[in-house]
């Protein structure tokens, strides 16, 4: 475990020695901020209208829920942005080491494969967590001027963390298949989009197929988190997804070794 931590630390720092950490954190914060402002304006309009509706005697003032009308759609949109940003974090994990020959150092050091894989995973997930933490700066305003349900916000962020980690585990596997970061990035991106499209395909499918497809869909499981519900089913789904991604990575690492 100490070895895995050493690698995680190295990976995490590695992001900051190239512009990639600053670019992804900055861009993600910017996009998140813009979405936040857009949803906030919409939410304010809605609440004004709701208030006005009460004045005009249309069934009394309605309550608008900041959690349901602002935080939930915000986090759902954020989950799509995450899909675009995370391939940039996972692309270098193995492709870069293979290209520069440093994989030879890792594989001839007294490390077990899972220590290398977990180290890289935690390094990337750490940066992603930091990326999410920065966006909390936007959400904090809601707590200053309003009274949202903090448990829902936390559940939402937990969901985003799990969702992103699943993306990362898959991205690491793909990064291990090539020496070219750009190729790794694009393939990861394409595969993640396909996973996202499962939702749409499900719309046209028959009832049984729809059930199957939505259960498999990676974003479908996020919705409950955005609502503030932490359901064990979804936890199990993401945990299995991450495990599967890391397992594929370890298999392909082993396959490389035999192939030479």
């Amino acid at each position: 475990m100490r070895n895995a931590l050493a690698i995680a630390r190295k990976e995490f720092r590695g992001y900051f020695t190239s512009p990639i950490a600053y670019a992804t954190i900055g861009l993600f914060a910017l996009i998140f901020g813009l979405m936040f402002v857009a949803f906030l304006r919409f939410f304010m309009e809605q609440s004004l209208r709701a208030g006005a509706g009460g004045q005009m005697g249309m069934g009394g003032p309605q309550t608008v829920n900041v959690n349901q009308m602002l935080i939930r759609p915000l986090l759902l949109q954020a989950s799509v942005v995450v899909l675009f940003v995370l391939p940039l974090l996972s692309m270098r994990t193995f492709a870069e080491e293979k290209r520069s020959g440093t994989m030879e150092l890792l594989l001839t050091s007294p490390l077990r494969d899972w220590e290398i894989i977990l180290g890289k995973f935690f390094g990337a997930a750490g940066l992603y967590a930091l990326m999410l933490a920065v966006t909390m700066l936007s959400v904090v305003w809601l707590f200053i001027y309003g009274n949202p349900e903090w448990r829902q916000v936390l559940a939402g962020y937990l969901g985003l963390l799990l969702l992103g980690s699943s993306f990362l585990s898959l991205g690491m596997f793909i990064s291990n298949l090539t020496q070219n970061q750009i190729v790794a990035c694009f393939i990861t991106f394409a595969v993640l989009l396909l996973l996202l499209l499962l939702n749409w395909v499900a719309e046209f499918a028959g009832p049984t197929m729809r059930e199957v497809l939505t259960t498999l869909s990676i974003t479908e499981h996020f919705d409950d988190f955005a609502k503030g519900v932490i359901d064990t089913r979804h936890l199990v789904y993401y945990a299995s997804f991450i495990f599967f991604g890391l397992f594929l990575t370890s298999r392909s690492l082993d396959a490389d070794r035999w192939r030479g």
Partner: protein
Amino acid sequence: MIEVQHLTKRYGQTTAVDDVSFSVAKGEILGFLGPNGAGKTTTMRVLTGYMPATHGKATVAGYDVFEQPVEAKRRTGYLPETPPLYPEMTVHEYLTFVAAIKGVPPASRTRQVDTSMQTARVTDVAYRRCGALSKGYRQRVGLAQALLHNPEVLILDEPTAGLDPKQIIDTRELIKSLAGDHTIVLSTHILPEVAQTCQRVVIINKGRVVAEDTPDNLTASLAGVEAIYVQVDTGGGDAAPVLQGVTGVVRVVGTEARDGRFSFEVHSERGHDVRRDLVSAVVSQGWGLLELRPVRLSLEEIFLQLTMEESESDAARAASSRDSDGVASEASSAADSGAQGGNSDA
């Protein structure tokens, strides 16, 4: 300390290493010699646990590299062909990271990093980025990396490749000074390097071991033919036909003629000492015998001979001495140019 038994490695259809066996005693420096693509790097990669062998067994410091890889790797330092550096890290950061993954306990990390930097003479660039270092420094940082956890076994893949002459000499001295405490396997395709640094040589070609001995023994006994250098003063006439006529002589190569003095290299059948007969032939002609001495083939010549013989078919190798002599003399003429190249390298 290192045992390799019947090691075979195939990549798909190609056989990179074919039934290689050798062993290295504790504290010894073994030179792994062969042309490019002979299977040196593959053998080293199997020894370091980077890749498994297709067949065969390798143990390092008593641990099977396949069965107990972590234990074996803990005792092995490895410098790959290209030093595995992270360009964005400083030398100090890099070595500290390597210390962590090599399992150096946190308490002694700083000390070990400093020691290895001193040994490999990279202390002056400790806070420079690895990516900004010259080839020579990169190579030395790679060496520092291999030495870091003070391993019993050092495996160095072409440690002097790309260095300037001064650095090559320094690196060889360093490697020699490490023997004793460490068991070292180094690969190279530069021959003087082996003669100067190694106690034992394994010559490998096309994935097979073609010779294994000390540099001295190789030079002495593995010559395909015996050669004698003769200098004769005939006063004018050509001595070659006379020398050729001596029984047991297979080939006479004239090297130079000046003022009626002829120099020849006389090749004889193996195990057939023609010196007596040569002397009486020269004397019976009334010529002056100025010099007569056995020629020991240099490592270059043996190397070329061995690796070129290998390229002939097996049938040709088993054929008559006349044939094998033909191969040998081709090799030795090629070796002249090879020797010059080698010397200018050193």
